[in-house]
């Protein structure tokens, strides 16, 4: 399948890229291209201009700084997967990255693209909800920081203006008593999740849950924060009984639609099971001092 015709520019600076975007309402950013190019081949996307940001330097990095884990938007999933820092201190992110698409796609796909595409079936959105991450966007008016809860307006609709490029993702730096996990069910490697659950939690000195983030993948029009479930568990001890109730509440937050991956009831039940498992794993990691 051959994509429709388009003009192509590969700027070498962010400023040039922003200028190209602002002058062209039909322009679209190309980063890893692992979602956009298939969509263009299916003619689901027909941008008049492709602004390829792969030649913009300085957008590929993973580093801890000022209390944040900062990830450059153009960082490949394979680089996150191979990061010792992420493997050691950000296990939710490590879990998630490992199950995105397949190794070949991960060699091209970028963290920024996974978020900016705003596909509720993508994996990083739920993970970033659980982390309470922030994203940084650069546009004509300069740079702004967007809380992740304000970022996903609808399916494939990020809160980015036409002239804005997502440049960085900021995850609160891990502390000694935090832990996370991502649990995903997929029919086969490379398929989107039937459902997936991201958990990030912190334990207090007494061993109770001090903070908690729960993000749900592919069970709604946007990634979903299970806030009622979060509130229920905060301040409570991490017991199986409390986890069961939290998992039930998380499944109630899901808004799945029936499709070839399963019925509404099945997906809701799956969210419940995956939430329970992810909580168990996250608390084990938090107790073991592994993030």
């Amino acid at each position, binding site marked *: 399948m*051959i994509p429709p015709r388009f003009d192509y520019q590969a700027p070498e600076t962010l400023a040039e890229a922003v200028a190209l975007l602002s002058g062209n309402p039909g322009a679209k950013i190309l980063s890893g291209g692992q979602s956009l190019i298939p969509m263009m081949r299916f003619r689901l996307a027909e941008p008049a201009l492709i602004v390829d940001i792969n030649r913009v330097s300085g957008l590929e990095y993973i580093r801890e700084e000022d209390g944040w884990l900062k990830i450059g938007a153009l960082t490949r999933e394979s680089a996150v997967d191979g990061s010792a820092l992420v493997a050691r201190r950000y296990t939710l992110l490590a879990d998630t990255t490992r199950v995105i698409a397949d190794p070949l796609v991960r060699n091209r796909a970028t963290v920024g693209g996974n978020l900016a595409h705003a596909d509720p079936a993508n994996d990083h959105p739920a993970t970033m909800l659980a982390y309470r991450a922030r994203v940084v966007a650069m546009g004509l008016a300069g740079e702004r920081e967007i809380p992740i809860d304000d970022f996903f307006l609808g399916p494939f609709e990020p809160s980015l203006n036409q002239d804005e490029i997502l440049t960085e993702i900021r995850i609160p730096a891990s502390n000694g008593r935090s832990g996370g996990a991502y649990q995903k069910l997929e029919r086969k490697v490379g398929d989107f999740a039937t459902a997936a659950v991201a958990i990030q939690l912190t334990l207090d000195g007494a061993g109770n849950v001090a903070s908690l983030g729960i993000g749900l993948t592919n069970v709604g029009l946007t990634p979903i924060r299970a806030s009622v479930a979060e509130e229920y568990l905060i301040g409570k001890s991490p017991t199986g009984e409390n986890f069961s109730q939290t998992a039930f509440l998380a499944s109630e937050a899901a808004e799945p639609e029936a499709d070839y991956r399963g019925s509404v009831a099945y997906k809701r039940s799956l969210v419940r099971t995956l939430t329970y498992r992810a909580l168990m794993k996250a608390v084990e990691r938090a107790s073991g001092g592994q993030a």
Partner: protein
Amino acid sequence: MSTHTIHITVNGALHTVEVDSRLLLVHFLRENLNLTGTHIGCDTTSCGACTVQVNGVPLKSCTMFAVQADGAEVKTVEGLAQNGKLHPLQEGFYEKHGLQCGFCTPGMLMTSAALLESNPNPTEEEIRWGISGNLCRCTGYVNIVKAVQYAAEKMQQEKGGGHD
């Protein structure tokens, strides 16, 4: 602009060509350069039959525009054998019956070659994980894994030969 002049090195040979921006890398390789060893399978970024290496990184050439490879070094299955001698992986696929219909083989070879480059002595699980983006519809994975193991051993021997 919708047409661009690109400089692209494929299997060691530099090509300077004018391409349409929408030309996919796989079509460029197969149709412009006649390198039909790289296959088009699913056409939907799923199967990995079109895997080539761009600057040493294995990727799906159906999901990259040729214009993006301007300045890059591309390696296809035609570039694996050197001076008429099969690559240890090609030999392994032959010895261990690592192919049945052969359609996925070029992609399997290019992915495995990159895997052995970064991990010369992979476990069976690492091999299976490594090729999980390449589908074999004959389901011949057991022998594909054996073929990669054969190549890993052979390459280790060749490498270690001078030291033992």
